[in-house]
Every structure is written in C-alpha cells, then in structure tokens.
C-alpha cells in the first residue's frame, strides 16, 4: 500500500486512456505522456499499460507501506527517497516505511511514478484512467488528496536489477497534419498561424494547451461550424484567435475550426511544455508523420529488447 502525504498540484492515477466510448461522449483521459508511462513500467517489469501515478509540477510526498520497486520517468521534479536524491529514468528498490518526495519543476512539468505490480484500481469502461471532468475511473474518480491510501497489485518478486533508460528529449517545435478547414479559414490565416511563434498559457490544463501570441488579432475570425468529432491533438481556433491544442481530457465534439492535428509522435511533448515556454509549428505530410511514429516505436522496441536481455 502507498499513502499520499502531500498530493502537490495535481496527482492522478492514469493508464493509456479509455477507447471505444467516444461516440457516447466519453473522453480518453490517461497519461499525457504515454511514452514515459510505458518506459517506467518496462523498467520494473510491469505490463506497459499498468496504472501509474502522474504528477504535475511536483511538491508531492508519497509514503510506501510495503517493500516494492519503482521507476521514475517524465520530468525531473527533484525527487528524493527519504533524504537521498533519486533520478528520473531509473528504477529503485523501496523499503517499507520510506518516503518519496518531489520538489518542483527543474526541467519539464509532468513526472510518472510506476510501482511494481501496478496500482490496484477498479477499471471503468476498460481503463484505470481518471476522468477528472466526469469524475470516474482512477481513484474514486478524482485527483489524489492527502491521506489517500492506494493498493498495489500483487506481483512475483524477482531479483532486483538496477536499470536506467535514455529518455526522449523534450521538443517545442511541433509537427502537424494540415488543417481540414484550410479552405474555410483561408491561406492568409493559415500562413499567419504556421509562421508565428506562441507562448504556453498558464490557463493550460489536461483538457487543452492554450496558446497566446502577438498575432491573435490576425487569427481572430467569425466562423462557426457544425459540431464535429475532435480528439487529443486537434488544434481548435476559437473566434478570439488563441489556438487550443486539445489534450487527453478534451470533449469528444466541438464546433471551432481546426488549424491542424498534432502528429501522433509529437502529442506527448505537451506533457512537458511549461507555461511561458515558446512553441512553434510546422506542417508535415502523412509519410513524415508515419516515419516519426515508426522511429518512436523503434525507440521503445530497442528499450524493451535491452531490458529483456538484462533479466
């Protein structure tokens, strides 16, 4: 069992998210950085989709009431095990009674803590992910609070092997599929959008990364569309000219025109882009996006191979 002493800004139970129910209005939820989640799980021999803790900004404290093994990935949020610093990208043996403490963000935003066996929560519609808007899934359908106690799934204890993984670098230049509303928005607006740089707004959350820019006046518009399906990665342009990149907790339909869609290989980078960080975009074609995804899969495949050969 683990006990939350301090939840920090936002601490939730997540897995890869919920699929198959979007036509009923059910969001994906799940880890903002599923690559980091998978790597953390692989480092401790878990199923790669096992439920993990997702921590935004740090400032959390977690006490372990049983001996276990954990791995940290995602952002370096200044983690310490009791008083000793520990590092993201590595696995650690934890003794009963030890406390894991996070300071604040040094580099990036979102950290993942995988625990051997995975967190034991009742799946809802096939997923352990916390849906913070509809209030189901994860732990009691909400973010974690001080005093919450979470159970860990049983696992066969094997000999501990110290392992680390090279984590993917962060990226603030994001690749996009072209807009399906290019004709409606017009060349001038699309060119203005793609040639400008943006700043991540502090109003961003798990539903969407909100951008601000000097050129929002030139991106403002009066188009209103019939609702169409949207998903994490869709870039909406509300009439105020401030683009929103939809993330995991976004709704399933929306009526704003779309500026494009973040390629599958790049969407996870938004887990680490902090408020006031700069963002820019480029459009790519289907082959380039496919290539980027294959490279990402190759990274995970190599990692899996290396881990399996160490065991």
């Amino acid at each position, binding site marked *: 069992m683990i006990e939350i002493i301090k939840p920090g800004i936002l601490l939730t139970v997540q897995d890869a998210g919920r699929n198959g129910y*979007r036509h009923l209005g059910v969001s994906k939820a799940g880890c903002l950085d599923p690559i980091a989640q998978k790597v953390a799980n692989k480092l401790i021999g878990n199923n790669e989709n096992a439920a993990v803790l997702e921590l935004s900004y740090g400032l959390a404290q977690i006490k372990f009431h049983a001996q276990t093994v954990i791995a940290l990935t995602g952002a370096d949020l200044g983690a310490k095990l009791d008083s000793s610093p520990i590092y993201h990208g590595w696995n650690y043996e934890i003794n009963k009674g030890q406390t894991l403490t996070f300071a604040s963000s040094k580099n990036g935003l979102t950290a993942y803590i995988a625990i051997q066996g995975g967190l034991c929560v009742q799946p809802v519609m096939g997923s352990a992910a916390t849906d913070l808007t*509809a209030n189901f899934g994860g732990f009691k359908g909400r973010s974690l609070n001080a005093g919450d106690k979470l159970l860990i799934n049983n696992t066969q204890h094997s000999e501990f092997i110290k392992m680390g993984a090279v984590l993917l670098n962060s990226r603030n230049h994001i690749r996009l599929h072209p807009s399906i509303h290019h004709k409606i928005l017009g060349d001038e607006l699309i060119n203005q959008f793609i040639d400008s740089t943006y700043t991540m707004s502090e109003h961003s959350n798990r539903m969407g990364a909100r951008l601000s820019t000097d050129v929002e006046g030139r991106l403002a518009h009066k188009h209103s569309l019939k609702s169409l399906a949207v998903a994490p990665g869709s870039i909406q342009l509300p009439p105020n000219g401030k683009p929103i990149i939809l993330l995991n907790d976004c709704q399933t*339909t929306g009526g704003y025109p779309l500026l494009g869609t973040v390629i599958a290989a790049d969407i996870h980078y938004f887990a680490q882009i902090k408020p006031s960080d700069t963002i820019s975009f480029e459009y790519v074609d289907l082959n380039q*996006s496919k290539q980027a995804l294959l490279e990402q899969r190759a990274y995970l495949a190599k990692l899996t191979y290396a881990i399996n050969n160490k065991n």
Partner: protein
Amino acid sequence: MSKNVSTMKIKPLISIVNNNTVLIDATNNAGNTLQIQKYIWTLADKLKRNFECIDLVPAMNTLTLYFDALIIDDECINAISYICNNTTAGNFTSRKHIIETHYNGEDIDTVAKYHNMSVETLIKVHSNAIYHVLFLGFQPGFAYLHGLCPSIHTPRRSEPRLKVPKGAIAIGATQTGIYPADSPGGWHIIAHTTSSLFDITNDARPCLFEPGDTIQFKPIGLNDKEQL
C-alpha cells in the same frame, strides 16, 4: 411531400485527418439535418461491420473514424469512399425510449411566460414531439436531440447555473436535452427525470441512448400537487 430519404444520393467529402483518423463530412449536401443524419447513422453501422475502428464518432452531419495507428492508405480510403457513395439513409439500429418526466423544473414558469403560453400548453408541446438522438457529446451520455418544436425555442439563461442536477430536462435555444450528471449549464430547466442515462459500471452498454435512437417524454404526476 418531402423528398424520400432513401432515394436521396449523398456524396460526402472524405478527408484524412491524420494517420489514424478519417473524417466523412456530409454537411454540404442537400437535405435537412435529420435526413443527412439518418445517412450518417446508416453509414456508421455499415462501416462498423467492415472496418476495425477503435472509435466511430458521429457529430452534426459528420462521421469520424478512429483506427489503430497507421492503417490508412489509398486502398483504405477507396474502400471507405465506395461504401459512402453506395449507402442511402435506410436501416440503422435504433431504440425507442420513453422517459418518465416530472414537468416541475425550476424555469418552467419563466419559459411558459416567455412564449405567452400556459404551463399546460408548454408541457403538451414538449411531450408530444418525437426526438432523435443526433449524436452525443459535451459529457458522457449527453444527447444532442433533434425535434424541439420552434414554438418553444428559448434563448439560453443570461446567467448559467453552476450546477444543473443530474436528470434535469432543459431547453437551450433550438435544443432540448437531459443532463446525465450534475454539471454547469445555461439552459432553462423545465423538468426532471429519475431515469439513469449513464452507468459507468456497465461496460457493454454504459449509455441509455445511442446515436439514432428516438426519445419521447411522458409526463407523470401532473395531478400531484407536489410535482407542479
């Protein structure tokens, strides 16, 4: 007489959104919203039988297919186009729902007054119609319904409520709907139901409504003083 839906040819626009998403857009076709939407529901049923989609999401006169990554190529798009161009609005799976409705909503007097009608007339107009579930969105189980009589279209409240209770039946502009869970909302609450719209413990069928279903509101407890 209106044109028979089943003979109406619809040619939607098909766009590749990304390596695993295809948008089928019929918004620019002739025909009213409901006629086109019947085509969308029929198409959804047909595509479901032919492709392994992770999600298949109808919205307003559009249908979006989400595949497992990377399967979209020219062959796949050709197959989708073929099905789109050889489908006419016809047989789609749908259910009929009768919703037991207590017309005792907080705003029912305001709405009746706005339209210069009695509460009894408002109830009659609202409960006589058959509504179609166009699609779901906004929150799990929230159905966008078609069929609200124009005589009771009502502008949204000037101040949205922070909490509209689960089961509230409301009117907002040209639409009516039922809130499946407590949520903020700017529509006028005219009634309440105790029917459960969304059950997270039922993996096989969490939602009472599916796109294409029809709904009728059945007034109950009208003679009960407490209810009105």
